[in-house]
């Protein structure tokens, strides 16, 4: 395009001048540069840049909001976990208290019943011992009579005459003592 149009208007500018230094082209370039750059500046400043800046700003805000929301949810879930653990610990403590109480109560009951049983048994034991002692005494007393009679009979059989009661009694007493 440039080549063909150039040949149509070749003598427009200074001949033999290096084109970038040809002052006759300056006014047109200047006017168009100022015009196009002003339009570009206006478009950038009023339309494009506020829009792009807004998009980026929105994204930063959205990300910040999301992070904040996530942080809030995390704090909430941590609070819930803490509350759950506290409730669990309380329940466990209460259970231990109840268990300890029950254990103590049962131990106390067992102790009381054991004691009453022991007392009863002791009383029965004492009664039994008393009966045994009485029976023994009675038996011992009877043993002396039997022994005296037996000795009297033995002496009578051996000697053919009944011995004096007093002698037999003292002899039996002596034998029982030894």
């Amino acid at each position, binding site marked *: 395009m440039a080549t063909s149009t150039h040949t149509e208007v070749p003598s427009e500018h200074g001949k033999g001048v290096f*084109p970038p230094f040809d002052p006759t082209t300056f006014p047109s370039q200047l006017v168009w540069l100022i015009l196009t750059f002003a339009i570009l500046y206006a478009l950038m400043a009023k339309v494009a840049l506020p829009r792009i800046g807004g998009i980026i700003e929105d994204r930063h805000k959205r990300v910040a909001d999301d992070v904040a929301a996530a942080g809030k949810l995390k704090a909430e879930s941590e609070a819930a976990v803490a509350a759950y653990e506290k409730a669990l610990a309380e329940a466990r403590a209460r259970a231990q208290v109840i268990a300890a109480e029950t254990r103590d109560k049962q131990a106390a009951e067992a102790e009381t019943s054991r004691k009453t049983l022991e007392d009863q048994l002791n009383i029965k034991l004492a009664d039994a011992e008393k009966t045994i002692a009485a029976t023994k005494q009675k038996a011992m007393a009877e043993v002396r009579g039997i022994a005296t009679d037996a000795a009297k009979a033995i002496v009578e059989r051996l000697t053919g005459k009944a011995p004096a009661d007093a002698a037999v009694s003292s002899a039996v007493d002596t034998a029982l003592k030894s």
Partner: protein
Amino acid sequence: MADPIHQFQIVNLFPVAKVGDTQIMFTNSAAFMVAAVTVISIFLIAGSASRSLVPGRLQSMVELSYEFVANAIRSTAGSDGMRFFPFVFSLFMFVLTVNLLGLIPYTFTVTSHIIVTVTLAMSVFLTVLVYGFYKNGLHFFNLFVPKGIPIYILPLIVVIEVISFLSRPISHSVRLFANMLAGHITLKVFAGFVTLLGSAGAVGIAGAVLPLGLVVAITALELLVAFLQAYVFAILTCIYLNDAIHPGH
């Protein structure tokens, strides 16, 4: 061999207006300026049209260019520099697009004309001057008086600072202009070798492989330069604007 300068020729397409004795023309340069503005506007406005929370490819590119320029300003001129964001962004996108469009064969490179780069650089220079005096008043002159300099060499330093300040628009504009001009001339010269050797029989065609490879390599390099020069232009703009915002450093 084709004239390597021919690609910089301004071609009048049709007249637009007459101011005094000067005829204002719609030229090939103007056509590419309009094309660049159209491309940038379509790219940015279409790319941000969906306003997606999760950006697509086009929107990613749009956001990338936005963040790229915004970060460049924040890192050089601080957050106060963001008031010039539309200006720096327009400059960067305009220079970049015009440079890249110029790399397409048979197109015209707007920034290969000194009047364009000088105008852009002067717009930066005047913005720095006007805003510097508006914001800081006479304290703007502190820019020329660095702190902690012994009094006996201060006059010399001030003179140097003033000269370096005044030469900024020159270096700012010539850097871009010369890079684009030289790159396109180099491309054209090597491409000329290819056609020249190619028309000289079988041996010539074999010999043309080397300049052809070079043209490919230089085209890749020029893509880098096109981006880099736009970036340098924008960064220098930020640094100069920083002087207007914080003249005392």
